[in-house]
């Protein structure tokens, strides 16, 4: 398959990306190309020009400072999955990056491209929403920050303007006593998420504290599920409390459920509480390990697990 013809420009800096985007109306930036090139080959997109940002060094790398992990937009899924900083401070993000596609896809695909593309079957929007991440964006007149809750607006639709470039993703470092998990029901061939659930759960002694749960693959854009969060927060953790909270996800799914030849809307609706329950159970297990009196002793197991 051949993409339609396009002009090609290469940027060396963030400032130059902006200049090139302004000079070539309708141009698209090219990062890892693992969403954009398939679209071009299928002729679902035909931009007049591509601005290759793949060599912009200032967009690469992972740093921990001020209680957050800052990940450059061009950092690959493989780099995120292999980072000890991400594993320590944002374990659900490390887990999600490690189950994207396959190794060759993870070697090329970038976190910035993943969120800008905003495919409902992607993993990272879901997990970044649950973790309360925010996006640093270079615009025509400077920089702005967009919280994940305002970034994802619909099926492949984001708050980004035509000339906006995601430069970095800031993820708050997990506070003590918080457990995180990402539960993925993968499509068996593409490995995209049929359903993805990201959960963070805080354990305060014998009570569940703050809970955040985000859903992917079910509705056109990744969303938080307030019903599940409220149903579990403040409760004593138990298998029943988890199951009850997971069932509440159906209140938040609405009528716009995704369905396709692999998984119908009805099937996804039925599987949603199952995936939520698994994510909550795994996150609580992590939280109880973090909270264990003899910290992290391998044999410690809470009675309710």
């Amino acid at each position, binding site marked *: 398959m*051949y993409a*339609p*013809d396009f002009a*090609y420009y290469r940027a060396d800096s963030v400032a130059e990306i902006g200049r090139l985007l302004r000079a070539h109306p309708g141009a698209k930036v090219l990062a890892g190309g*693992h969403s954009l090139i398939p679209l071009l080959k299928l002729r679902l997109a035909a931009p007049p020009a591509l601005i290759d940002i*793949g060599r912009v060094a200032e967009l690469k790398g992972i740093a921990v400072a001020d209680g957050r992990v800052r990940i450059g937009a061009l950092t690959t899924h493989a780099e995120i999955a292999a980072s000890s900083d991400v594993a320590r401070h944002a374990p659900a993000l490390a887990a999600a990056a490690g189950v994207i596609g*396959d*190794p*060759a896809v993870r070697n090329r695909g970038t976190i910035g491209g993943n969120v800008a593309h905003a495919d409902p079957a992607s993993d990272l929007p879901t997990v970044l929403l649950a973790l309360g991440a925010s996006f640093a964006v270079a615009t025509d007149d400077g920089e702005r920050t967009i919280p994940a809750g305002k970034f994802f607006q619909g099926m492949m639709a984001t708050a980004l303007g035509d000339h906006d470039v995601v430069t970095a993703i800031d993820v708050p470092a997990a506070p003590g006593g918080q457990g995180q998990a990402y539960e993925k029901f993968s499509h068996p061939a593409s490995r995209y998420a049929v359903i993805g659930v990201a959960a963070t759960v805080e354990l305060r002694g014998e009570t569940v504290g703050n809970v955040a749960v985000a859903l992917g693959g079910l509705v056109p854009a990744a969303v938080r599920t307030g019903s599940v969060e409220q149903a579990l927060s403040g409760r004593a953790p138990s298998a029943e409390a988890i199951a009850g909270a997971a069932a509440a996800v159906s209140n938040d799914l609405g009528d716009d459920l995704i369905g396709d030849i692999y998984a119908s809307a009805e099937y996804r609706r039925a599987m949603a509480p199952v995936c939520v329950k698994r994510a909550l159970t795994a996150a609580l297990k992590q939280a109880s390990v973090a909270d264990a009196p003899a910290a992290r002793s391998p044999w410690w197991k809470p009675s309710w697990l």
Partner: protein
Amino acid sequence: MTVPVSITVNGQRYDREVEPRLLLVHFLREVVGSTGTKVGCDTSQCGACTVLMDGVSLKSCTALAVQADGAEVTTIEGLADGDALHPLQDAFWEKHGLQCGFCTPGMIMASHELLRVTPDPSDAQIRHGLEGNMCRCTGYQNIVRAVRQAAGTTAGQP
């Protein structure tokens, strides 16, 4: 529009003018003439087109030749040292890790990546590491055996 690129393939440098839309796999097959790398699905799912770029695997049906400008690409033709097969090639031969052979170049390059990242993989890690590569003939058992045999040799080193 054409763009000048300089891409080193299996140690030999190619300076060419290419259309920006030219895929890396077509650069390899049609410009360089190295047809070992195959096009299977053409939609980044089957792995038949897997090659190494600067030592790291990628699916060359989902990369533009212009993205490889300045890079060193290794294809299946670049693994053997003269008549001496690479340990992975030896192992696929000995363990009968192929039948029709169409998936094999990609399968071997993906196995190369697997051993680079995980030099001593378990069977589960082998299966997981090759999950982006499809074979329609072997049933995978012999492929896993081949990779297991190659592990522990210097297979992961370029």
